[in-house]
């Protein structure tokens, strides 16, 4: 059975027994998977059709690469020695002021929660990024899975045509001991065409189809006398790759399909368009999307650069929240804004700020989380955490619980050591658990 026939029968209301299984896809030939395109309308229809009882949970991680300054984003200290020129404006959470350069976020903040007391244990970029993406300090003998891989493993639908974990504008981190099928699919740049999902320019569709048919025939002989998982893996992966290239859902990556006004609302930057792509992907059924905004390592010209970055961040983040709410995705989608650490309160001689691990910001909301809470406070000079310190492990505990995943799910590593998704000493953030 080819995909074409599968899709035809989907249009004429498929019965349970007719549902395509993973096997039947694999048994079909590679070339059979090609040669159709579907309209966006059909796609929407197909996706909207079976409304499940409870909506599946999703997660979007907005990764601020380099370590964003809390003092120039969500915890400004105007008028103090460490505050610099950044002014504060009132946000939609009573009593909470944020940077003047985030006016749209000031409005959106009521739907989110703000942690101002993150305390972490890694001060160099690479190690801190690992910690931020996996919930663990790097350890020499083990590769921990990233949050996206955990979500893909726990919530993913293996029959879905697109990967369950997509990372935009950055590589994210891998699946570690969960296995390659949960690796992120990386979109290098949201505003450029994705690499290698179309045949090379010189090869048109009909020629590509002929090539696949030829490959199929060649592969059969070798597979015939080389029983074993490697050959089956090859067949399965090539089948998935071709299915992926031709999946009707591929239009999700095509931002031209959005009205100009929507594209503009997100901001015409790689990050803004990445946020739009994230919304489209989640809507289609991808479970985890990470969008990176680079450039926060502001050792020099901190104020000029963060102002510029905020102009990119503000419309992207705020429009994402707005659209997820409008499209009834907010209560099933957890959104997290974070980087690998914060910036040092003292301003140094180059008008920059160094790395800082004792008191920095994370913004999160959506899903089952409450909204409008402020967690933790810093001293007026921004140097001391006054209450509610939150570790990355605590944050992970809260995120996984919010996604309906047991944070202490146990796994065996290749060295036969059991390990849990989150360190055993982690506790959920009390202000964000449901009972509060």
């Amino acid at each position, binding site marked *: 059975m080819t995909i074409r026939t599968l899709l035809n029968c989907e249009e004429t209301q498929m019965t349970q027994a007719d549902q395509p299984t993973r096997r039947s896809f694999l048994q079909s030939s590679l070339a059979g998977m090609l040669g159709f395109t579907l309209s966006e309308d059909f796609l929407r229809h197909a996706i909207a059709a079976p409304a499940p009882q409870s909506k599946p949970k999703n997660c979007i991680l907005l990764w601020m690469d380099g370590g964003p300054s809390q003092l120039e984003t969500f915890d400004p200290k105007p008028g103090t020695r460490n505050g610099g020129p950044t002014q504060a404006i009132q946000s939609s959470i009573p009593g909470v002021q944020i940077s003047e350069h985030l006016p749209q976020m000031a409005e959106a903040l009521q739907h989110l929660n703000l942690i101002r007391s993150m305390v972490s*244990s*890694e001060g*160099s970029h*690479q190690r*801190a990024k690992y910690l931020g993406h996996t919930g663990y*300090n790097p*350890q*020499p*003998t083990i*590769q921990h899975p990233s949050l996206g891989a955990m979500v893909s493993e726990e919530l993913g639908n293996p029959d879905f045509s697109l*990967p369950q974990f997509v990372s935009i504008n950055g*590589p994210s*981190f*891998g699946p570690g001991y969960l296995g*390659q*099928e949960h*690796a992120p*699919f*990386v979109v290098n740049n949201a505003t450029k065409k994705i*690499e*290698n*999902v179309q*045949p*090379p*320019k*010189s*090869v048109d569709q009909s020629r590509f189809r*002929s*090539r696949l048919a*030829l*490959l199929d*025939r*060649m*592969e059969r*002989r*070798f*597979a*015939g*006398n*080389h*029983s074993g*998982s*490697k*050959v089956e*893996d*090859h067949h399965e*992966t*090539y089948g*998935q*790759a*071709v299915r*992926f*290239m031709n999946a009707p859902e591929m239009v999700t990556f095509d931002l031209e399909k959005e009205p100009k006004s929507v594209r503009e609302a997100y901001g015409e930057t790689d990050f803004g368009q990445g946020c739009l792509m994230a919304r489209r992907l989640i809507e289609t059924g991808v479970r985890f999307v990470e969008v990176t905004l680079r450039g926060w390592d502001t050792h020099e010209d901190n104020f000029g650069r963060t102002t510029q970055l905020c102009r990119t961040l503000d419309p992207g983040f705020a429009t994402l929240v707005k659209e997820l709410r409008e499209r009834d995705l907010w209560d099933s989608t957890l959104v997290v804004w974070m980087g690998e*650490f914060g910036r*040092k309160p003292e301003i140094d001689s180059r008008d920059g700020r*160094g790395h*800082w691990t004792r008191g920095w910001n994370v913004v999160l909301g959506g899903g089952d989380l409450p909204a409008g809470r402020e967690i933790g406070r810093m001293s007026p000079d921004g*140097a001391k955490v006054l209450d509610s310190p939150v570790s990355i492990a605590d944050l992970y505990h809260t995120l996984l619980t919010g996604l309906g995943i047991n944070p202490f799910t146990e796994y065996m590593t290749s*060295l036969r*050591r059991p390990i849990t998704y989150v360190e055993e000493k982690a506790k959920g953030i009390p202000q964000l658990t449901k009972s509060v």
Partner: protein
Amino acid sequence: MSLANRFFQFRMRTTLTVGLLLTLLSPAANADGSLFSADIDRMIQSVWQSKEIEPVGVASDSEFLRRVSFDLIGLPPSYQEAEAFLESSHPDKRSQLVSELLDSDDYGVHRSSVLMAEIIEGRVIKQRLPMESFEKYFETSFNGDKPYDQMVREMVLASGDTSENGATYMVVTHQANPEDLTGTVSRLFNGTQLRCVQCHDDKFGDWKQTDFWGTAAFFARTDVRPNEKMGNRLLSVVVSDRKKGEIVIPEGGVTPSLKGLPKEERRKARREMLMAERRGAIAPAFLGDPVTVKKNQNRREVLARLVTSPENTLFARSTVNRVWSEMFGKGLIEPVDDIHEKDAGEWEPLLQTLSEDFARSGHSLKRLYGLLAMTETYQRTSESEDDIKGLEASFARSRMRPHSPEVLLNAILRTSHAEKQMAKQEEKMGRKSLRNRVLEKFSFAFGNDEGNRVLSFEATIPQALMMMNDPIIERAIAPAPGSLLMDIAQETKEPQERIRLLYLAALSREPNEHEMNDAMEYLSESLAADRQPVLVADIGGNTDRRKGGRSFRNLRKQAEPYQDVLWALMNTSEFLYNH
């Protein structure tokens, strides 16, 4: 001159290792008790007999040629080499091939790239130093078959300027960090995973945290300092040892980074570390036993001897087990990084015999690789229709193995002849820069982690997409001057013959009847679709793009069906795996 003649002329250069190989095969050399390939087979066969295992048959010449070329030099044979080997009726052609591969410079290049990748496992080298001196050190050492124990000692105690002493590679890529060096040295050369006890005593085994830090103490005095700079670019660094310096176990077992801390806290942390050094310095210890080091002795020199000493059987066991795993796709003990106090079970006598022989041979890696390549066990086929696991687990069937990104790239570039074009461009751009750029892109498809290498092709969607669609690969297989397609076109005008050569180039074998029919059918379908299957060289051989213009484009169109066949061949699992 016939291809077979060309082949033997090619082989005549082989001298050094033929001698070596003969000693492996001739019974007269057995006087000193050294091992033959047949002895290994006998030991394996006795295990098969006791388990009533019936091994599969012998690998065909083409299967053997391809496998042993990848294993010994990391490259596939060219179609000329494949054809010559298949045609040859020389009774010793397999052993001659093994000697020739061990004698080729590619042997050292491949061994270097494997070991260098193992050493930096999971690490990114931020400051990219020029690689020439490192590569030269490894390549010369491997090609000259330097005793492996000597080589390891050189790496452990290397000092001086990187541009002059390439043996500094390991210390430099670990930035002389005692913790990382301890992990790598014990894992790679003694098959011992000490890192499990870096942070706490072993819950499951006998290791103590002090065992890890006792080994780290050997590196406590080693420094890496920047030396020569050109603008912003670092050209070399210097490795040296201080007279003093101790190691202490930091809280939590990982030396904390002081970055991101307030100034006072950083000062306090440094002060505490100094005090702890005076109070609680960990004394050097090796594999759990305390070691006395004289006051003025270089600690690394002591460690280098301990790691490779004849009394430390782990060195030979670990090396032999690693080589075995490379040649057979699975170690006699698994995982190869963790063999301390483990027994190879039914293979234990074999592992012991091989390790003793390796030590007795003066730790000659070439001898070991030759010995294994010439066993009947290595030369079994990977073909089998039933019972995969049982046979593979006992080495009774050759195992399919993924290629490393480097080797798969080699296979693509060599098969398509794109490496020639790349070499020309590299001459203009500086050594290996272009290849490295391609490799970077290539490795990206293999694993996305920042800084985490994926060491093998594991059939993921991005990899399949890259193989099918990447412009680099499409360009490599395009009929440009000097490409495989052009060379084949010049060799013959006969379509069947061209298909045969394409199969030889991509898979080192001839197509069977069905495959030939399929391919010919493909050509004629393309013909019907108004694409004349002719290659550029058929028409006057005017292949210069600048002169050709429109007619070149035309000719390219005509070569398309052959390009499609090559594309399909290079996307088969037969091409993508070592088998």
